[in-house]
C-alpha cells in the first residue's frame, strides 16, 4: 500500500510552488512527533501548521519512507493536498514563495506513464484516516507574511521571539529569506552566536527586526568579523553594545569595517569640530569635553548647530563654559528652547548664572517634560504656559 501512495504523492508534488517544501517538512516533522508537538502547542499556543480539516479531499499519506527520492521528512509533503514538489533541487536551492511554480516536465512524464491513477474511494484503515491532514492551498505569491506565518515553524518561532514581521516584510527580499530558512538548522545557531556576542534575550527580537539579513549570513564570516573587532581592542561589553545599537554592523565585510573605523576617526568629527572651534569660538579642550559627553553632536547638521548656538549665546546670554558643562542643549530642538526661554523671560525667571539666586540649569530647561517644567521651574500653571504660547 505504501508504494501505491508514494507515486501519486510525487506526481502532485511537482505541481505547486517549491517553497512550501521547505516549510512543510518542518510542519510534518512536528506532526510526526505528535507528543512533543502537542506540548509545544499547549505551551506556546502557536500553530506550527494547519487550518481546519477539509473533509473528503484528496487522500494523503503519512509516512513514506520508500518510493520517493526525497528524504522521509519531505516525503510527508504528499500528505497535504497543497502538496509541494519533492524535487531535490528544492531542498538545495531554497526557492522562494514568490516565484511561480517550477514544473519539471520530465518527472511528470515519467510518473504519468508508469503509475496507474489511484482512486479517492479506496478503503483505508482507521489509523491512516486519523493521520490525514488535508489543508487548503497556500498562496503562491503574497506581499505579506501573514498568510504563511501559520504554516511555518520558523516564522512562528520568530514571532514569539519578538520579531516584528510586519516591518521585516517591507524590506527587500527579507521575507523570502525568512521563509526559506530552517529553524533548527540555520536560525538556531545564529541566535546562539548572537547571544554569545552579548545581545540580550529580549533584544533579539528588535535586533532581528532591524537586520533580518544576518540570518542569511555565513556563520564563519560572522565569527571572523567579531574576532576582527576584538583585535581592534574593543572590549566584550563594548562589542555587545555596538552590535545591539547598530544591527547592520556584523553584515559588513572586514574591509568595510576597517574603512568605517578609519572614517569615524578622521573625517566625521572634523567638519563639525572645525565649526565649533573657528566659528563658535570653543577652545580645543572644551570641544573634547563636549564630544566625550554627547558624541551625537558630531552628527548634527552645521546649520542647526549654528542656529542653536546663536540663540543660546547671543539671545539667552549663556557663556561658553556653561555650554561646555551642558552640551546636551545642542541636541534639543530650537523651538523648545526658544518657547521655554521666552516664557521664563516673560515671568522674569530667566536666570542662567549659577552665582545668582533662583538659578535654572540648562539641562533642566531642556530635558524636563512640560508639566514638570511649568510647576517646578517656572512656578506657573500649564494653562498660563499655553496662553503664553498662543501669544508668540
Amino acid at each position, binding site marked *: 500500500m505504501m508504494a501505491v501512495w508514494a507515486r501519486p504523492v510525487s506526481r502532485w508534488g511537482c505541481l505547486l510552488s517549491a517553497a512550501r517544501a521547505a516549510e512543510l517538512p518542518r510542519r510534518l516533522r512536528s506532526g510526526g512527533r505528535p507528543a512533543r508537538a502537542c506540548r509545544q502547542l499547549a505551551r506556546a499556543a502557536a500553530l506550527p501548521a494547519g487550518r481546519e480539516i477539509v473533509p473528503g479531499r484528496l487522500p494523503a499519506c503519512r509516512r513514506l519512507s520508500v518510493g520517493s527520492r526525497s528524504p522521509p521528512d519531505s516525503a510527508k509533503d504528499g500528505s497535504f493536498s497543497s502538496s509541494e514538489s519533492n524535487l531535490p533541487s528544492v531542498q538545495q536551492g531554497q526557492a522562494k514563495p514568490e516565484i511561480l511554480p517550477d514544473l519539471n516536465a520530465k518527472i511528470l512524464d515519467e510518473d504519468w506513464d508508469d503509475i496507474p491513477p489511484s482512486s479517492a474511494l479506496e478503503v483505508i484503515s482507521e489509523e491512516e484516516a486519523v493521520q490525514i491532514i488535508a489543508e487548503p492551498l497556500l498562496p503562491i505569491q503574497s506581499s505579506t507574511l501573514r498568510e504563511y506565518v501559520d504554516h511555518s515553524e520558523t516564522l512562528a518561532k520568530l514571532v514569539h521571539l519578538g520579531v516584528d514581521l510586519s516591518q521585516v516584510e517591507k524590506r527587500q527580499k527579507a521575507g523570502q529569506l525568512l521563509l526559506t530558512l530552517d529553524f533548527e538548522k540555520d536560525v538556531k545557531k545564529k541566535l546562539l552566536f548572537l547571544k554569545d556576542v552579548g545581545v540580550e534575550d529580549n533584544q533579539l527580537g528588535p535586533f532581528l527586526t532591524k537586520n533580518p539579513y544576518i540570518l542569511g549570513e555565513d556563520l564563519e564570516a560572522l565569527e571572523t568579523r567579531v574576532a576582527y573587532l576584538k583585535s581592534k581592542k574593543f572590549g566584550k561589553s563594548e562589542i555587545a553594545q555596538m552590535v545591539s545599537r547598530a544591527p547592520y554592523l556584523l553584515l559588513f565585510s572586514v574591509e568595510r569595517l576597517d574603512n568605517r573605523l578609519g572614517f569615524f576617526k578622521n573625517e566625521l568629527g572634523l567638519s563639525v569640530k572645525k565649526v565649533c572651534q573657528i566659528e563658535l569660538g570653543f577652545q580645543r579642550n572644551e570641544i573634547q569635553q563636549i564630544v566625550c559627553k554627547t558624541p551625537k553632536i558630531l552628527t548634527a547638521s552645521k546649520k542647526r548647530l549654528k542656529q542653536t548656538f546663536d540663540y543660546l549665546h547671543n539671545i539667552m546670554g549663556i557663556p561658553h563654559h556653561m555650554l561646555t558643562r551642558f552640551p546636551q542643549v545642542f541636541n534639543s530642538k530650537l523651538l523648545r528652547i526658544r518657547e521655554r526661554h521666552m516664557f521664563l523671560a516673560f515671568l522674569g525667571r530667566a536666570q542662567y548664572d549659577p552665582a545668582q539666586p533662583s538659578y535654572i540649569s540648562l539641562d533642566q530647561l531642556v530635558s524636563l517634560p512640560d508639566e514638570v517644567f511649568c510647576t517646578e521651574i517656572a512656578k506657573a500653571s500649564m494653562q498660563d504656559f499655553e496662553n503664553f504660547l498662543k501669544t*508668540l
Partner: protein
Amino acid sequence: MAAAELAGLFAVYKPAGVAWGRVREAVETRLLRELNAAPAAAPRQRVRFLPTPAPGGGGAVELVAARVPVLADHPLVRGPRFRKLKIGAGHRLDVKASGVFVLGIGHGNKLLTDLYNCHLTKVYTVGGLFGKATDDFSDTGNLIEKTTFDHITREKLERILAVIQGTNQKALLMYSNIDMKTQEAYELAVKGLIRPMGKSPPIITAIRCLQFALPEFQLEIHCLHETQQYLRKMVHEIGLELKSSAVCTQVRRIRDGVFTVDDALPRTQWNLQSIQEAIRNCQLRVETELEKTLAHGEGQESSSSAGWGQLGMLGRNVHEQSLQYSTAATCQQCDGQQKERG
C-alpha cells in the same frame, strides 16, 4: 472604529519657525500613535485537530480538538492598525508666521473647500519696527538701509492707514462685482457687507493701529486673499510713506473665518481627546456658516441679480463676525464709505 469617528474641522496654533507641512505631519503622527495604542481585538481562534498520543501508549495517534489562536492576527505579524490619516490644511501660513491654522480630518476635508468658497476675512496682528529696511521685509533679512524715525507720530501713522484703507475699499467694491448705482448696493455698503466672492488680489478690509511705541508699532489687519509676505510688504510700504523705513517683526493670525485664537490648540494639546473636543465645539458654528452660504448659493441661481443675493446673506455673516470681535473695523468701513459718497 475610532478613526472613522474622527472627522471634522479644528484649529491648531502654529508656532513660528516651522513649516505648515511639519505641523500637519506632527498632528498626524501624534494621532496615529494614540489610535494604535488602543487595545486591539483579541485574535481569532480556530479549532484544530491535533494528533496526540493515544492513551494507553503504543505509538497510536488520535486526534484531539484544540482551540488555538490564529497567528496571522498577532500584532507583530499584522502591524499597526492605522498607518495613515487624511488630514487636510486650510489657509496656509509661511515659516516665519504663527497663529490660527485650520485642519480637517476625514470627512471634514470636504468642509474645507466649502469654507474656502465662503471667502471669510482673516485677522492678523502685525508687528513692525521703524528705522531699518531689509530685502525680504522682515527683521531677519539682509539689511539694505537704515533711516531715522524720530519725526513719526501716531497721527501720521493713522493718516497713512486711512489712506490704505480707502484705496483697498475701492478695490473691494470693484472686485465684488456689484453695480454701484442701485439701492441694494447702497444698503449693503452701509452695513459693510460687500465682499469679493471669487478670485481677487489681496484686499485689506480694515486696518488700525493697536500699539505705538517708537520704534515699534503693532497693527491689526483684516484681509482677504492675502499672503503673509504681502502683509510684510505692506509694513515696508508704510515705512516708505512715512519717509522712513520699516521691517516686519511678527505676523500672527488671530482669526481665520470662524476659528479664533481661543479655539486653536497649542502644541501641548495636540492629542486625540483635545482634538475631538475642539471638533465638537466648532462644529455648530461651521455648520451655520456653511448653511447660510449654500442657501445663498441656491437662491442665487434663481434670482436675476445673482451677485447681490449671495453677497447680502454672506455679508450678514461677515457682519456678525465683525460684530463679535471688532466694532472699529465696521465703523471705519462705514466712514470710508461715507467719505467716498461725500
